[in-house]
């Protein structure tokens, strides 16, 4: 009896140990393997992250470089969790919040063997914040608060700001702020456009023009054990059907930007548990921008009517089945602590819970403004997801208050041109930012005199004042109140622009891809150091 139960106990113990070991093994990253992923673009225009703004550059080239600080790769959906990459610890700002002192990690080497020092970090940031003549830095305007950046000694970098602001640290975590070698930048500031040489987890292996980019493990990477992958292959494919088929046929494991619901449904239906889907709200969205310089859109009543006619609360769930949109929210990213609550939103035009009342009010305003049955053209970009779907939906919504709208779809070049020259009635606009940084992200709503990418054609001194005060406020509660005031002013009182449901990121991947976590931005967390293959 005892012997039997003894054996049973031993068997149970062995079983327990084995299960625990198995579970532990499932969580321990495996080394080895090559990750093949799709990049939903044609080739990047150049390899220089300081210069480019397209995700094609970041998906293809980020694995080769290090940055100073970044969003925590193990918690990338957080909008406040920033950690060090090349620094040793996150500094507390001194001097009334105007000085940030970073200590740089020791023992980091560039791929050519030379050591990386604070001088390289300072030189790279100098190129971003204050590029020399003839060199373009796409993010120069995000760092107007920076007065000076310098390397005080080989292990220390100091940033001095003109004024204290909460917008600095998130801006510093920009995924394009790659650290280049000072020696190369001094000799030829354009070198990095066509060449790759960084200190990141992967070394550059090869690039086939317009086709694929390959990297191999950096054996001297400063994070022990990482990267887990032997290498990666990034294949460029602008066509969605190809990317979906590739994942389906296991020619590629994942596409990091995001696929529409139909692709997800198809992959899940075909492959069942061989596919894992991660989803997240996206720090991108479409907006509707009426051209204030064209009658009758200079009349705030007409603009308000446009907003009031739209039923986002019911439209979003329907659209989310076919388009990459999902969450209804105000001007702040829905996951951010600065975002409006549902109750706060419902006060604003376009978010009223009773659509009947909302549309009635819209009709009343149109009549009052003498714009009943108004006919106009909605300009849109020739991209399916989600631009054209949103455009078609908007036209349908506006028809419900008697507005007759046609759509004019333009390819990217002429679209931007028309935006810049204001040759449109109303346009579908967009706002896409890399790191969730609400204070900088809402700059899109500011008039053109302050923010170059605003195409509404209006000027509004009060709005600018509201924003400047908001930017400099460091007390969290006061900031909340101020941003609500700004939001109300922009979306309701003046209705300068109209929100549509925020984009939604859907990333289906082969289940053997582990370690990569989705985030609100398709630009961040792409250095692939913590990705491993479970096969």
């Amino acid at each position: 009896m005892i012997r039997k139960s003894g054996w049973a106990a031993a068997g149970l113990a062995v079983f327990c140990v084995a299960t625990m070991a198995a579970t532990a093994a499932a969580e321990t990253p495996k080394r080895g393997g090559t990750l093949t992923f799709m990049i939903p673009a044609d080739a990047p225009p150049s390899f220089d992250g300081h210069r480019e703004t397209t995700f094609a550059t970041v998906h293809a080239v980020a694995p080769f470089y290090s940055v100073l600080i970044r969003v925590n790769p193990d918690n990338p959906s957080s909008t406040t969790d920033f950690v060090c990459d090349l620094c040793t610890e996150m500094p507390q700002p001194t001097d009334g919040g105007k000085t940030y002192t970073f200590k740089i990690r020791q023992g980091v080497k560039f791929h050519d063997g030379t050591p990386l020092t604070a001088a390289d970090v300072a030189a790279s940031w100098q190129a971003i914040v204050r590029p020399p003549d003839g060199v373009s830095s796409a993010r120069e305007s995000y760092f107007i608060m920076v007065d000076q950046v310098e390397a005080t000694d080989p292990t220390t970098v100091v940033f001095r700001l003109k004024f204290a602001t909460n917008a600095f640290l998130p801006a510093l975590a920009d995924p394009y702020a790659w650290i280049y070698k000072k020696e190369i930048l001094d000799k030829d500031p354009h070198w990095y456009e066509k060449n790759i040489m960084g200190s990141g987890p992967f070394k550059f292996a090869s690039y086939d023009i317009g086709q694929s980019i390959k990297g191999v493990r950096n054996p001297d990477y400063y994070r022990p054990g990482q990267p887990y992958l032997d290498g990666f292959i990034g294949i460029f494919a602008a066509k969605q059907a190809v990317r979906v088929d590739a994942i389906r046929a296991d020619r590629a494991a994942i596409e990091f930007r995001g696929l529409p619901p139909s692709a997800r449904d198809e992959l899940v239906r075909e492959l069942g548990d061989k596919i894992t889907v991660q989803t997240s709200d996206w720090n991108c969205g479409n907006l509707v921008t009426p051209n204030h310089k064209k009658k009758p859109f200079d009349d705030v009543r007409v603009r308000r009517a446009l907003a009031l006619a739209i039923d986002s609360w019911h439209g979003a769930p329907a659209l989310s089945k076919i388009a990459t949109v999902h969450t209804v929210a105000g001007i702040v990213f829905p996951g951010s602590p600065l975002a409006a609550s549902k109750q706060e939103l419902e006060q604003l035009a376009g978010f009223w819970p009773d659509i009947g009342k909302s549309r009635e009010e819209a009709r009343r305003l149109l009549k009052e403004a003498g714009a009943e049955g108004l006919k106009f053209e909605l300009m849109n970009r020739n991209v399916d997801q989600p631009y054209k779907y949103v455009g078609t939906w908007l036209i349908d919504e506006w028809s419900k208050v008697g507005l007759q709208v046609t759509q004019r779809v333009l390819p990217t070049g002429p679209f931007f041109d028309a935006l810049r020259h204001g040759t449109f009635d109303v346009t579908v606009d967009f706002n896409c930012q890399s790191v969730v940084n609400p204070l900088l992200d809402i700059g899109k709503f500011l008039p053109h005199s302050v923010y170059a990418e605003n195409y509404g054609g209006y000027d509004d001194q009060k709005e600018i004042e509201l924003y400047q005060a908001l930017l400099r406020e460091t007390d969290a509660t006061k900031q909340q109140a101020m941003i609500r005031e700004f939001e109300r002013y922009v979306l309701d009182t003046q209705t300068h622009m109209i929100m549509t449901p925020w984009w939604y990121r859907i990333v289906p991947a082969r289940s053997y891809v582990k370690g990569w976590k989705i985030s609100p931005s398709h630009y961040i967390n792409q250095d692939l150091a913590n990705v491993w293959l479970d096969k």
Partner: protein
Amino acid sequence: MVDLDLAPYVATAAEATERSRSWRAGIIRFCRRQPLGTVGLVLVLVMAVAGLLAEWIAPYSPTSNDFAAMTEPPSWAHLMGTDQFGRDLFSRIVFGARTALFVGFSCALLGGITGLVLGVASAYFGGRLDLLLQRVFDVVMAFPLIILALAVIAILGGGVHNVIVAITIPLIPRCARVVRSSALAIREMPYIDAARACGFGHTRIILRHMVPNVMAPFLIMLTAFVGQAILAEASLSYLGLGVQEPTPAWGLMLQGGAEEFASTAPWIAVFPGLAIALSVFGFSLFGDALRDAMDPKLRER
């Protein structure tokens, strides 16, 4: 002055009746001799009826979205299913026939007539005009249609009319070339010189002598052009350079959504393509049969 006009004229009513009777007999003979051509004619007629009577045939509006009925398979409610916006595919195809016919005939007529005028003028006047026109034709024919189309669309904007412009331009030199070679043969004939010697004006000679004799190849080319124009519009719309949403057009229906939903809702891709193929097929068959019927050399041995 003796009238040396030799062009065929319908002079009397009696002759007219004779002609109409022989037209009917001609059609019947055509159907019996050219079975393929008859099939083509039928296809063309079906398309024409669909396009002209679209409002009566189509059960739904081609542009109304119905988010509750997205990508539904063919059923009694929706004969060809619905697309990703919930729009009825059958209605869109029927209205698409109207767009295709409009584009096809506009391009064929515009391109054909311009080509006819230029080709005949080039052949008749010869010399430097001919040389210059030939070079211009070379450039236009060699120039890729895609660039031309994108430029036209980008400069003038999208929409059906600008697509017609974009497609017509490459058709003109093709027509002009063929017309020119036919007209050159006529020009060598002695009665042209005789007519000039009698002091007849250029216009009269061109219109009365040269044009009627190039009519046969010209008409056949027109039917071919309609088919080519429909195909060209489809290709341009597929590349995003053609007709724009929400206009129902077959090529546009094959763009975007069709490929995205190819595995889950194949009817979105199958039916528009079938419509294009069948219409161009019909026009080609008919055009071929027309040529066979009119060309004495290719008659049965």
